[in-house]
């Protein structure tokens, strides 16, 4: 116990650095997947059959395979199969590869939620707007959008909370996120070796982060509860 207290400042510093990388991956994934998911959603409900078929096939593949395999493929495929190691060997290359895999994966999950949201607004809402002389654009922004958002906030929240924990998967390509930082103390890092408690300690970071995210999302959900 005394030893742990002595090691604490060094470990916290290293874990914080890893956590920054975790946060970065988390934010980039959301920033990329929100708009890309909408694009994919429009593709999957497109009236042009080839577009909707290809989009749905893509969604099926991404949702049907583990994110971990997608990470490995994105990271290793260019170098080992195409002999063109576009990512380089460094941390920034690993981050780019991880970000691409995460954004695409989450965009596919979001797209299905968006699609459900778009289709769940009753067609009568659109027709009421048309009959009142509104344009399709006005109807989307003033009538449909908020009802859609209200419906997608709970399922999107679930995905966001899963994402907090999924970022740990980037460990598989040695991205220096918080799990990687905690594990380093087992092999030896910052003059500490054979310590497993830092790895266990990372759980607190996830718990606190998830707590904050959950609170924020619950607040958003409450805000939408003024109508039904």
């Amino acid at each position, binding site marked *: 116990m005394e030893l742990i207290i002595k090691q604490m400042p060094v470990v916290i510093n290293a874990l914080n650095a890893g956590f920054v990388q975790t946060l970065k991956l988390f934010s980039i994934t959301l920033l990329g997947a929100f708009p890309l998911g909408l694009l994919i959603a429009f593709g999957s409900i497109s009236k042009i059959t080839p577009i909707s078929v290809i989009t749905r096939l893509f969604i099926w593949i991404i949702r049907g395979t583990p994110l971990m395999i997608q990470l490995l493929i994105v990271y290793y495929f260019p170098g080992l199969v195409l002999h063109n190691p576009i990512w380089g060997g460094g941390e920034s290359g690993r981050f780019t590869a991880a970000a691409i895999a995460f954004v695409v994966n989450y965009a596919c999950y979001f797209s299905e939620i968006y699609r459900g949201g778009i289709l769940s607004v009753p067609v009568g809402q659109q027709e*009421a707007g048309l*009959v*009142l002389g509104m344009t399709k654009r006005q109807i989307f922004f003033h*009538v449909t959008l908020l009802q859609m958002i209200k419906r997608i906030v709970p399922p999107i929240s679930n995905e966001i909370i899963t994402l907090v924990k999924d970022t740990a998967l980037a460990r598989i390509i040695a991205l220096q996120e918080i799990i990687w930082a905690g594990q380093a103390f087992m092999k030896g890092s910052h003059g500490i070796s054979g310590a497993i408690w830092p790895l266990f300690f990372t759980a607190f970071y996830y718990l606190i982060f998830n707590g904050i995210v959950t609170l924020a999302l619950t607040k958003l959900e409450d805000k939408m509860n*003024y109508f039904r």
Partner: protein
Amino acid sequence: MKILEVNNIRKTFGNVEVLKGIDFSLDKGQVLSIIGSSGSGKTTLLRCLNFLETPDAGEIIVNDEVLFDAAKSHITSESQIRKNRLHFGLVFQSFNLFPQYTALENIMLAPRLLAAENNYNGKSKSEFLTQLESQANEILAQIGLSERKNNYPYQLSGGQCQRVAIARALILKPDILCFDEPTSALDPELTGEVLKVIRGLSEQKTTMIIVTHEMEFARDVASKVIFMSDGEICEQGSPSEIFENPKEERTRRFLLRYSGK
């Protein structure tokens, strides 16, 4: 004075002809009741008049202006269709109020957006909104919902929702206001308040087309009645002609079924 003329409207879904050539006309201030069994094409007819469906054939003429001519429908622009729609109003069976807006906001939304496109008709925005709101308040008073104007649809009863839907259509001052079974989704004890509002409108000489299964009401309020059957107008005439001396066997059978209940 003739306000509406409908000539030979036809509409086919897939290979089912739902409207088989509908002809009728309506004078300003008249109330037309349309009755007929379910599936006879009443809703489709109203949807055609409100440009939610495009007829395959026929003409729609309002105030001597040809709003729709099937022969030329392919060249009609989106903005022209929008303009055409404003000649008509439509009150749906299921209200279709916007849930995220209060009663007052539901009424003001469309005219507000329309005016914003036209630079508030030369007025300042705040001046326009003040006028619009007082207009909306007047209509709310007329339908007896002044106290509920800041309630959201989920806080209102079905009858109150339908009255707000009527107000929302009225504020755009349509030439012809259409109702598609406005009381069919309501509990029986709530139909009265909606019918009372419609009756009030007819006393003010609002031109209306009312599709309804409330036979007594249809007869009281109408200046003209159409009985539809199987996509056709089977019989049309004054309320007393249709309800007391129907000429067609189908009309008689239909009325018999309804007077039984």
